[in-house]
């Protein structure tokens, strides 16, 4: 294969709007989880449990969507919305365990996160088999279809890229912007950040460190759950065992690369989404699939190596606070 041909293929991929549409679509679960991680870590709680929270969200999304249609009488169009609500609430419930372990019990936050990841992996695997009777995956469930935004979708190039997505993709963009505003421009945002920078000082002026940290953890639960729903209630329309495949860790890296800001998290997720969208489209060039599958993980290490030193984490991150 000559260089000219390869370059031609690459140019074709880069000028094709569907590459960027895939980028936005693929980056969505990463961005949601990363923004959740941002809120959580800004309050001083390390959250490596994002992986597990996403997995719980993906599972709950599929189960709720399944039952909504099979037993609760919802239409096929409504079922994924029920799934979404289920995913968010189960994500929050699961993250509450992280809160109790990391905040109240003052355990090592990274270890608690690891425990929850294993618990999520085993728990969702166990429940898949207990509920659906088969190991490995749920049946197909009702899922979200793309909703083109009238008018805007007609804009050449950009319309395809931005305005022809499933509802969760739009939500992610709104959440990134709103999250940025809330965290840096509102009193509640200031309180959240203060307990992550200097909990003692925050405590002295009457801010409840525990309460703020729980808020941060629960936000990561809600957004991680939503991110999971985006995996199971999108194109594949089912839950399968360990379907997050390390995305929670990549999201964590995106949060760091985005310097612990919601918009930064979203933008760095786009970078990962872009790498993965290339992965989908490079089959035309003769690269073994294993190497293409490695790409997001390699990129994560590169990005992390580059981001560090310049990105400064919240000062009290990972340190349990003990009010005496």
């Amino acid at each position, binding site marked *: 294969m000559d260089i000219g041909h390869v370059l031609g293929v690459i140019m074709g991929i880069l000028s094709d709007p569907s590459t960027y549409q895939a980028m936005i679509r693929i980056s969505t679960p990463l961005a949601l989880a990363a923004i959740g991680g941002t809120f959580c870590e800004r309050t001083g709680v390390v959250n490596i449990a994002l992986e597990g929270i996403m997995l719980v969200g993906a599972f709950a999304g599929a189960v709720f969507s399944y039952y909504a249609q099979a037993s609760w009488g919802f239409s096929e169009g409504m079922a994924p919305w029920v799934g979404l609500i289920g995913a968010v609430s189960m994500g929050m419930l699961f993250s509450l365990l992280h809160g109790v372990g990391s905040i109240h019990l003052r355990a090592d936050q990274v270890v608690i996160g690891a425990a929850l990841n294993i618990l999520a992996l085993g728990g969702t695997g166990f429940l898949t088999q207990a509920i659906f009777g088969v190991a490995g995956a749920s049946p197909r469930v009702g899922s979200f279809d793309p909703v083109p935004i009238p008018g805007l979708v007609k804009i050449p190039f950009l319309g395809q890229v931005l305005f022809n997505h499933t509802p969760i993709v739009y939500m992610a963009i709104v959440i990134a912007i709103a999250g940025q505003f809330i965290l840096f421009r509102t009193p509640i945002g200031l309180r959240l950040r203060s307990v992550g920078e200097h909990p003692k000082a925050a405590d002295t002026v009457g801010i409840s460190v525990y309460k703020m940290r729980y808020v941060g953890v629960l936000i990561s639960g809600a957004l991680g759950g939503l991110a999971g729903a985006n995996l199971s209630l999108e194109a594949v329309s089912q839950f399968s065992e360990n379907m997050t495949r390390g995305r929670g860790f990549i999201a964590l890296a995106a949060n*760091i690369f985005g310097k612990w800001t919601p918009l930064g998290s979203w933008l760095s997720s786009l970078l990962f989404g872009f790498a993965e969208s290339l992965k989908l489209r490079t089959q035309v060039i003769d690269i073994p699939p294993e190497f293409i599958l490695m790409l997001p993980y390699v990129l994560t290490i590169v990005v992390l190596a580059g981001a560090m030193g310049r990105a400064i984490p919240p000062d009290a991150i990972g340190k349990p606070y003990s009010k005496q």
Partner: protein
Amino acid sequence: MTSGAKKLGVALAQPLGSVIVALIIGGIVMAAFGFDPFSGYAGLFRYAFLSEFNMSVTILNSVPLVFTGLAVAFAFRCGLFNIGAEGQFIIGGLVGGWLGTLIAWPMVITVPLLLTVGVLAGALWALLPGVLKATTGAHEVITTMMMSWIGLYLSSYLVKNVLMDPRSTIPASNAITDQAHLLTLDKVLPFLFRGSTRLHLGVFLAVLMAVFIWYLLTRTTLGFEVRAVGSNPFAAEAGGVSVSRNTILALLISGGLAGLAGTVEIMGLHYRVYDRFSAGYGFTGITVALLAKNHPLGVIPAALLFGALTNGGAGMQLRAGIPIDIVDVLSGVIIFLVAAEELVNAVGRRREKRRTAARADAALETGGGGEA
């Protein structure tokens, strides 16, 4: 009770209590989904321990867990969380096994050489996370995890495309040479076994390694420095102990132990490199280390417990139809409870408070000053 025995009792109480509470929670979960926990646990016990064969499978499962448990524990003692032992395990097995298909020198040379290569390969896989942590501060939890996925796909590619045995129907390398085998114990100690066994020399190697790591950590300068960095990096640096040097060193040793686990698994059990030959031993090593409270000798009983749980989990599935994933649920609960030391401390404090209050009451009643 002597104070030493008392200390040991206190140290063991929390891990043991955590295991028991986890088993109870697991039982409740089983019952909640219509499974019979009693026949489940009976199946688990039978498959894990009853009969010589089952016992040997339990021990075989625990051998890699001793190494990976030591790997994770060693890094933890330096304040590092090597969550990517799985990848180092796979790369160790891949490289050691690959060389094992090529070399047929006398066993006394081949076996130690391959084991060393396995250690080096695993260490190499942990080198980049170590260097990044020491130079840029990139968190090892993310980098070792990412290296783990890269290792998984790389070995998958190599097994399918480079090492592949053309006669094999599943992705697997050629068999390693006879000289590369870790001998089974019936060949080494024929008087102990009636028939043949799959138990191999790796069993002894695992125990020796646990003792060696214990010695390294507690009786050498290297171990002292690693622990100093782990308990307080700032104080260590101020005291002239290099944090970055020990960070890299600890991750290299940790990766080496995980790599050794992979090589031993190929040389002692599989005799060829399969695609995805690891049964998640790197990840279970995390649970093993935490349950052992990162004590190298504690890793042995913890590994046996999880060897038994994995083996017995299959029994639960066969006997009572309980999904084997319940073993991961138990692991998660155990780590959570072991990590949440405060749970135990809180109970202790409450008891202490009650005792103090009782003493104060007694003092008031007798009108004496008392110690309260």
